[in-house]
């Protein structure tokens, strides 16, 4: 072919490809702001609260309760996802909630409740949950340690909150460890890094 090839169709197609790729990447990264799924989850929650279904749990005393309105005075729940055998992240989460509980007790802040919810239903029986509660001196009036009452309830809770739990290959789990702020109406309104637990409490106290 010796005639000059028309470039217009090619340029149009290349422009289309470029535009589609830009749109797809922008959609995925929420406008190029979040390149990991965890960052995207936090951004989404910060911008528009995420509704969580009511979840039935079994607490450390073996009682069944339904979150998020189990406590009439609660204005906000600070929720962490744990498994009680966890050697690292959950211990940090536990001691941070313990500090927060202490400051709530000292300052007399009303309406903030804590929940440590286990995703390891097979191992975390009420007895194990009670052991965990004792270890961090959880006051049952302020701090609920529990596990969803059924596998279906657990799956729904994890899916709705965007928490992903994977086996770590050593018999434990890896999971996005964070402090989730949930209103009594079941709206997940903010997610804080573990290190920012003070800010999480300050935020929850304003709700």
């Amino acid at each position, binding site marked *: *072919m*010796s005639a000059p*090839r*028309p*470039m217009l*169709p*090619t340029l*149009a*197609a*290349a422009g289309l*490809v*470029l535009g589609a*790729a830009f749109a*797809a*990447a922008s959609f*995925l*990264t929420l406008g190029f702001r*979040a*390149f*990991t*799924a*965890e*960052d*995207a989850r936090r951004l989404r929650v910060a911008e528009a609260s995420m509704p969580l279904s009511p979840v039935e749990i079994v607490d450390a005393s073996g009682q069944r309760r339904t979150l998020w309105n189990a406590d009439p005075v609660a204005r906000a729940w600070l929720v962490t996802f744990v498994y009680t055998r966890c050697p690292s992240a959950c211990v940090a989460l536990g001691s941070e909630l313990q500090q927060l509980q202490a400051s709530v007790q000292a300052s007399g802040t009303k309406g903030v409740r804590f929940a440590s919810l286990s995703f390891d239903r097979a191992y975390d029986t009420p007895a194990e949950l009670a052991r965990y509660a004792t270890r961090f001196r959880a006051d049952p009036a302020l701090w609920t340690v529990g596990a969803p009452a059924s596998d279906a309830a657990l799956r729904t809770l994890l899916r709705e909150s965007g928490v*992903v739990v*994977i086996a*770590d*290959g050593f018999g434990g789990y*890896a999971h*996005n460890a964070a402090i989730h702020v949930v209103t009594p109406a079941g709206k997940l309104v903010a997610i804080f890094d573990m290190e920012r637990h003070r800010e999480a409490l300050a935020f929850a106290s304003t709700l």
Partner: protein
Amino acid sequence: MNPLAWLEADMARHMLVEIPLIVAAGAYLARFAPARVDAAIARFDAFGLTGWLFAGLVTAFWMIPAALDAAVASGATNAVKFASLAAAGFALRGSLRRSPLALEAFFVGNFTWMAATVGLVYQDAETRLCLAYLTDSQQRAGQGLVIVAVVAFAAWLALRVGRGYILSSDSAGVQSSPGGSERSTAIRPR
């Protein structure tokens, strides 16, 4: 465990085995595409520009940690991943016959630095970038991406040297390949 779940259970296997295999499968399928399909594509793919651009963008997209997580979390997204990567391989095979050396060098070079950079970022990251993958798997994926970057560049170079496009000064090697004469008229001054 089914083979796909096994491949996707590890970040390194997902990125370095599954994804290249899908691209290769797409390129292999392009062999069986009727000539009129290639002719229809060629109209929109002068100098292989569209195909190279498409392949470059698709491979870059699936290096984003959030994209890998989305593919693992949702079957629909995973289907999009398979389709887009296979299409990238398919397109690349046709574009390779039309593209001049300089254009190829641009896109291959681009892929090389990008994959290597992403690989280094994955190795350096102190936190897990994917919810679905552990840190050690992320480290291995990072190391592997650097290797893939180098191998891709070397493979392209070998392919071009093999066709006598870089080293030999006469155009015999080029003209014997399909589409070669078209390319030599369009690109090479006589």
